[in-house]
């Protein structure tokens, strides 16, 4: 049995239909990440799950207990759902000190003073804000406030923890440390986490599963790497990848019983028909930037292109290459040293491409058996 189950959730704000038939199952101990463009309904889903917002339609079951039923207009209060939420806007209490903010949840549970103090201080310590415990939220920096919000949520060690962009205002170093802290919590207490983030690295490294939202719908729920490597839908493909995936209009042509050709700006590729569910004529080919291989000399199967821009970003460099009409992004480790306007030869790593039906937007290629097993290694 799954720990949390959403079924057919629909939510309207006045006329606006913001959640459309959201269904989702989350197992105990899952680290589920919600990924999706701004305004797609992530926060709303969390709020509905927490019982702060009431859906018009759909069921929510937590730990085998029905906690909300839209049709029946039954909604268990937040407290009965045994979860905790880090609000996107922190929602710290301005009239309480940091300590009081964090201890509030424990005090409700009638523990003794000393224990409360210890636990509050230990979680403040973990979030590196113990020094600020007697300050009021208005006397803290943005990132410090955000950490208070996290501390307040984790101090009660809830079974289910919802986090709405909890690390967005923290610096990279702290973010890594906080991620580790959350991971630890996840493992040690087997807390089930539902996590909203816009940071793909965060999503990829932290989660056991990712749900990609778009315009109030869930497009794909999958393990991180699978999602990354085999986006199920063009929209998902557009959204994941850093920097963005390359999209090429392509056409397919069956060339033999076992092979077919894909024709695109990257030239002619020959693929096995095993690789694909079915052959469509008009397709979209996606190549991840890191799977676009650049060489300074022509190679077998490569096409030529012109370097348009080189954007070093510290650990890696993004190179914009014009290839016919389209600009393709390639990514290399380290500081790339291509000169602008020089000619280079590019070729797609065949393992890094995906094929989509141009009309329905659904992926056509299959996930290879071997790969699918491989991927399990990392989870």
């Amino acid at each position, binding site marked *: 049995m799954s720990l949390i189950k959403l079924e057919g959730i629909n939510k309207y704000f006045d006329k606006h239909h913001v959640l459309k038939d959201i269904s989702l199952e989350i197992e105990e101990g899952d680290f589920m990440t919600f990924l999706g463009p701004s305004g797609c309904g992530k926060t709303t889903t969390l709020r509905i799950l927490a019982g702060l917002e009431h859906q018009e339609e759909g069921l929510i079951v937590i730990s085998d207990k029905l906690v909300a039923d839209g049709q029946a207009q039954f909604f268990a209060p937040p*407290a009965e759902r045994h979860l905790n939420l880090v609000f996107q806007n922190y929602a710290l*209490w301005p*009239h309480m000190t940091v300590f009081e903010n964090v201890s509030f949840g424990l005090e409700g549970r009638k523990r003794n003073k000393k224990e409360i103090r210890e636990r509050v201080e230990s979680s403040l310590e973990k979030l590196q804000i113990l020094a600020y415990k007697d300050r*009021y939220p208005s006397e803290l920096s943005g990132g410090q406030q955000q950490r208070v919000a996290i501390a307040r949520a984790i101090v009660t060690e809830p079974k289910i923890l919802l986090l709405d962009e909890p690390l967005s205002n923290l610096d990279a170093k702290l973010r890594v440390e906080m991620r580790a802290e959350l991971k630890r919590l996840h493992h040690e207490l087997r807390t089930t986490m539902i996590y909203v983030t816009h940071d793909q690295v965060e999503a990829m490294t932290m989660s056991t599963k990712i749900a990609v939202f778009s315009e109030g719908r869930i497009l794909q729920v999958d393990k991180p790497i699978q999602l990354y490597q085999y986006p199920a839908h063009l929209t998902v493909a557009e959204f994941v990848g850093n920097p963005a995936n390359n999209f090429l209009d392509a056409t397919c042509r069956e060339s033999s019983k076992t092979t077919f050709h894909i024709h695109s700006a990257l030239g002619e590729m020959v693929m096995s028909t095993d690789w694909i569910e079915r052959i469509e004529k008009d397709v979209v080919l996606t190549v991840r930037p890191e799977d676009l291989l650049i060489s300074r000399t022509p190679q077998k199967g490569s096409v030529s292109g012109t370097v348009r821009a080189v954007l070093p970003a510290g650990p890696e460099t993004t190179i914009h290459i014009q290839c016919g009409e389209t600009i393709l992004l390639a990514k290399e480790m380290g500081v790339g040293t291509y000169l602008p306007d020089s000619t280079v030869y590019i070729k797609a790593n065949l393992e890094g491409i995906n094929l989509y039906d141009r009309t329905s937007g659904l992926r056509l290629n299959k996930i290879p058996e071997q790969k699918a097993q491989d991927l399990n290694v990392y989870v």
Partner: protein
Amino acid sequence: MRSISRYHSRSRVVNKLIRILTNPIHLISALALLFLTYMVAFPIGQILIESFQEDARSGGAAGSFTVANWMNVFAGSISEPLFYKPLLHSLSIGLSVSVLSFLLGGGLAWLVMRTDFRYKKSVTMLALLPYMLPSWVMAFAWMSVFKNDRIGGGQGLFYSVFQVSPPDWLAYGFVPIVLTMTLNYFTFFFLLLSVALGAVNASLEESARILGASSARTIRKITLPLIIPAISSAFILTFSKALGSFSVPAFLGLPTKYYTIATMLHSSIQNRMISEAYVLCIVLLMVCALLIFFNQKAIGKRRSFATITGKDSRKHLYPLKKWHRPITWSVLGGMGAVSAVPLIILTLQSFMMTNSQFSLDQFTLHFWLGDSNPAIASGEVGVLKNDALFSAIGNSLKIAFTAASIAAIMGLVFGYIVSKRRNRLDGRAIEQLSYLPYLIPGIAFSAIYLSMFATPSWFMPSLYGTITLIILICVVNELPIATRSGASTMHQIGGELEEAAYVQGANWGRRFTRIMLPLSKKTLFTIFLLLFISVIKELDLIILLITPENGTLPTLMFKYAESGFQQYANALMLIIVGIILITYFIASKLGKIDFTKGIGG
């Protein structure tokens, strides 16, 4: 870098001075202080001085310095009946009324602002009604129900129904005084807390609920502390209103000789023991000052009550579910009874030939529309036929409207300074000073104003005899309500909202009118309404200053009441209530105010 040297050549002090002088906050704060010093501190100074002067009637040399008045009150042979006991009564009344008003007004405010209760507008209306009536009306209504045979002259409704006399404690003294005052003044709590609750970001409560706190605990630990500024303001207003109220304790307290400081003060004034009156007055003022001091303590220096912040989050209403029906019935029923009963009694009376006998054959329109009939009330014509009525309505409207508008704006500006500069001396001084007029007895206050403005002084022209002075004294007298309400809202507005406009290049005026004012629109309206109501009912404050051609509705009513023409007075009272209601509707339509909604969409 020429420009640099320019500033360096000026000293730090000069720059600081320039900064202080050019900063509108300082300027406004200075003007406010000046205004308050002249209009409040100066009169109070006079009262203080006179409280140390020999009374003319005490036989000594009038005007010479003495502490006898103080000794007499504090340590004389009659201190106990004159001062300590009444003070104890006053304080316990004030405290009980405040607590009950808090429960009643706060509960209703919560119901209206925080739940999905359906009849919010009706409740708002019903909560305003009792405040519109003069306080004796409520006391009178109480009497007609609970009167027992102690006074004589027939018992009340309670007796007619149950055939037992209500005990004295239920009919007179502490209990009825507290209850009727509560019904009169819980409006402060209701309005201030409604506004404050409407401005509380729902997510602040939600986060407590998620942490597993029960509704009660959430309210106790989060909601209430968050609106401390509003609560303490409402508390102070209610407490001092109860402390200063004379008519209710006089009406309900005298039969069992239950005196309060206000009755004693009134007694001193009636018997023209000016110094003694002023000593009592100073005592009341000290209680005020103490309250404000505690208020400042409660608000603290560092804590923030900014619930209106730059990141807005969703509004969420608490579902009443199965409680909806019982709550609806009890609230609408209870409130309806409380608000409507006195009004109905009043209305019925105005149609009854003899005062307290209700029956169909007594029905008459005489008191409203009648022509002169020497057999009735010495030939007094009906209220609506009285030539003075319409000029009185005109004057009352003019005074109430102007005074309420001015005071409302001033209240917000003062409140702004009080909250922005709560750690500074000027902010605290303004908070204190703007509060003090509340407990100065109307006649003493207006007498001093009479002297101050009788002849031109300084830059002020002689205002005596003009309507301007009446408006001015009303404004000053109502400043406490205005400033307290204003401050409580201003505490809730996050600093960054004003800063955002500041960096956009908006000057103070624009910031205030475009950001602060709209954010506190409901408060503005609340203050306006509260002030409009109390100014339009004002009598003892202005009676010394009013001229015959400036007669107002209360002066007209005073004439009726003084002649013993109760029915006429009631009819007039109803007209006043009508005017207030019409004003309420027009103002809320024009201002697009919906009390029951929060800020923004």
